[in-house]
């Protein structure tokens, strides 16, 4: 409860709608410079822009591919997924050693010499790349709750607890030269008249069928390019708690400062949406990623300027320096390090004292 008695005592919900109109008459809102006459608690809500977040993204060496499974060679009744087609188990369980659930992408996959369909699956690639990606300004939201510990005339010692949410996307879109390793398997066609490519057979068991046992062919190593994007998609949830020094230096103006420890929770992780562009002109998609929850610690320092626009509403502008530990992502030749050590956050919003 406020310690002063104001003729403007109205319900709290009235404040936002009349805010604009009251801005013009703000100078008439008398405000004591003594903080003991002010409200004892406050809640701030604002939009925030986060700057100076960086990530180091690197690919180094052999990167295995996880998005397709070519399946075992010489084993019947197994599913096979390739870059350029599939041979799966159909509704009959591949009765008779054949399946209707098969498909291929291009006529060049048929080898008339052996009457076989040839499938390829990229097992991995090797490339080398290291880039530092700057996030640029990233929007988010901030909420702060504070209270009073002690008052001295124009200055108050208090505390504040803050939460901020910032979605972050730091991606590398460069096209890289790469060497690809492809596993090659083949299936007998069995003398059927092949439907024209691209063909996608169903699993009903009805339709053209081919034997379901794959035959190994030598692996292929070929050059090409890796295009698309790779990087971090994470959400930063930061929490901070610390003492707060509040100084009312004008009837409507006040300055607040706070410093203390901070904690960050990072959800999301490393993801890639790439295309393998092989030197033989074919392509294959490579999409995947790995999410995890990372907890980082550090500290913060914040300064806030507040302007009283109505008896229980302030506009505020705040700047915060947040330093949190780095987070590591990736694996298997891919690596990403998120640097949150010198993060600057600027926010603007409304503070409700009560």
């Amino acid at each position, binding site marked *: 409860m406020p310690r002063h008695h104001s003729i403007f005592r109205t319900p709290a919900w009235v404040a936002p709608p009349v805010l604009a109109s009251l801005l013009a008459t703000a100078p008439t809102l008398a405000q004591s410079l003594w903080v003991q006459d002010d409200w004892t608690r406050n809640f701030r809500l604002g939009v925030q822009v986060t700057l100076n977040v960086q990530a180091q993204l690197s690919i180094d060496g052999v990167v295995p591919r996880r998005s397709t499974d070519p399946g075992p060679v010489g084993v019947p009744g197994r599913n096979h997924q390739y870059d350029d087609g599939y041979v799966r188990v159909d509704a009959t369980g591949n009765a008779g050693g054949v399946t*209707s659930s098969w498909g291929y992408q291009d006529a060049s996959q048929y080898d008339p010499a052996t009457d076989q369909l040839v499938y390829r699956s990229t097992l991995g690639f090797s490339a080398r790349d290291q880039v530092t990606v700057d996030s640029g300004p990233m929007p988010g939201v901030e909420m702060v709750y504070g209270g009073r510990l002690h008052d001295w005339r124009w200055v108050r010692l208090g505390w504040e607890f803050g939460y901020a949410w910032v979605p972050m996307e730091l991606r590398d879109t460069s096209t890289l030269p790469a060497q690809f390793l492809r596993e090659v398997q083949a299936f007998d066609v069995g003398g059927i008249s092949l*439907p024209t490519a691209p063909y996608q057979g169903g699993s009903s068991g009805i*339709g053209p069928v081919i034997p379901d046992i794959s035959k190994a062919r030598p692996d292929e190593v070929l050059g090409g390019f890796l295009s698309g994007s790779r990087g971090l998609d994470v959400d930063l949830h930061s929490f901070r708690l610390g003492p707060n020094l509040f100084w009312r230096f004008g009837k409507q103006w006040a300055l607040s400062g706070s410093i203390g420890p901070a904690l960050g929770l990072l959800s999301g992780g490393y993801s890639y949406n790439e295309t393998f562009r092989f030197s033989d002109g074919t392509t294959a998609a490579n999409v995947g990623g790995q999410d995890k929850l990372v907890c980082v610690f550090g500290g913060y320092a914040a300064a806030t300027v507040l302007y009283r626009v109505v008896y229980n509403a302030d506009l505020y502008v705040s700047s915060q320096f947040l330093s949190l530990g780095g987070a590591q992502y990736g694996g298997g030749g891919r690596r990403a390090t998120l640097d949150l050590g010198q993060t600057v956050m600027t926010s603007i919003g409304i503070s409700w004292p009560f």
Partner: protein
Amino acid sequence: MRRFWRDWLIGVLLFLGSLVGLRAQVSQYGMELVAKPDPARVGSDVAFRLVITNLTSFAQGTFQVTAFVEGAGTFLSATNVLGYATNQVSGNGLTNTVFFEIPVLTNNQVADLRYAFRPSTHGSIQQNIWIQSAGTVFYVTNYTTRILAGVADLEVGFRSVPRGSLPGDLLACTLTVTNRGPDRAGDVRLTNSWPAGFVLQGVDPSGMVLDRRDPEWVILLGSLDVGEGRSVQVRFQPQASGTFPWTARAGVPDFGTSPGWIPAATTRVSVAEPGPGSFRVATLAPSVFSRQTGLMQQRIRVDNVGSNPVEAVRILVRGSPTGLYNAHGTNGLVPFVTLTEPLLQGEGRDLWLQTFNPLRTPGPDPELSGVEVPLPGGFQPETVPVLIDRVVRNPDGTVGLEFPTQLGRRYIVRFGPGLRAKGELALPVQTATANRVLWLDWGPPLTPIPPADAASRFYEVLEVTWP
């Protein structure tokens, strides 16, 4: 002054009339009440014309007519060229009292009284007419005018009426109802009446409420906007042979139609008894698995061992545990294919039977028999054409058509001897199992004779959109 003498004269005449014992009776007035339009529609004006003729042989003074009009609506106007007219609305607005007065209605004179309403609810307008003359009140009669909720001319049509059927066949026929307006029709009902020998197996799409009271049954079609049509497929089984009329009538409760419109259609379903033909049907080889189709295929032969040529032969396939994939129909629980090429005495044909066996191994040979049937037909699905990507003439004499498909959609091929010939449908309808289909014409029973034996054959691939 003239009015005084006129009233005086009327009084004298009435006095004289009473002296001679002549009293006006209700039968001594000619009366006619006409509503236009009849029936009327909610929200549209209905005009009433009440014509009363004085047949009493005497002039009637202070002639009064009262019409009690019961029914929700708005009174619009009333006219009386011989006098005046007033209207009084009841407190609840459901009754209007229209009052007409004519100073003198001379002998044989006609009172032409007109009034108009705009009904607000469907149902009826009830009118009680009273006449009062010379202090005597006559209750004349009451009239009812039907008020329709709307007018919708519903057009009923039959499609795919089966031909060449036998008793016990599972048949299907399509009924289409189209609203030709002028109003949107809600709760359209299709009432069917057919012979007692037909057994209703079902209606597609399923889920329609079916009110069944043999020999009539009703399909509730829901609402139809103006110009909108809706089709239903009726599956049924005739129990006896003969030619049976089937009438379907569409309607909407409290709706009317334009004058002369008949919202009904009748078709005749012919069901024949098997002909006297005699056949020998036998398998030619064991069933084998086809990698091209994923089906078991077995070659059979049918020979006409009777004394007469036949128009068509139906081969019944019993004892196949996995059914018959290329069946043309089912009689009872027995699937069959039909050879639609005439078979002369002593002549024979080879046919392929297809079954889907999940084990992809041969099963026991089916039990085969043949019966003479009329040439089947009548199936007329709604279709859209599909472009043929590739045509392959194979060394074994078969012809392959490759065309793009969508998994789960249904396709049929029409074939004929010429480019412009309408052609026949190669049954059965096939459901796509992949993104493209390689359809093979190997001859009977898919087509009457193998393509290699045909002088020419043209194909058209169609996607079946209904039924």
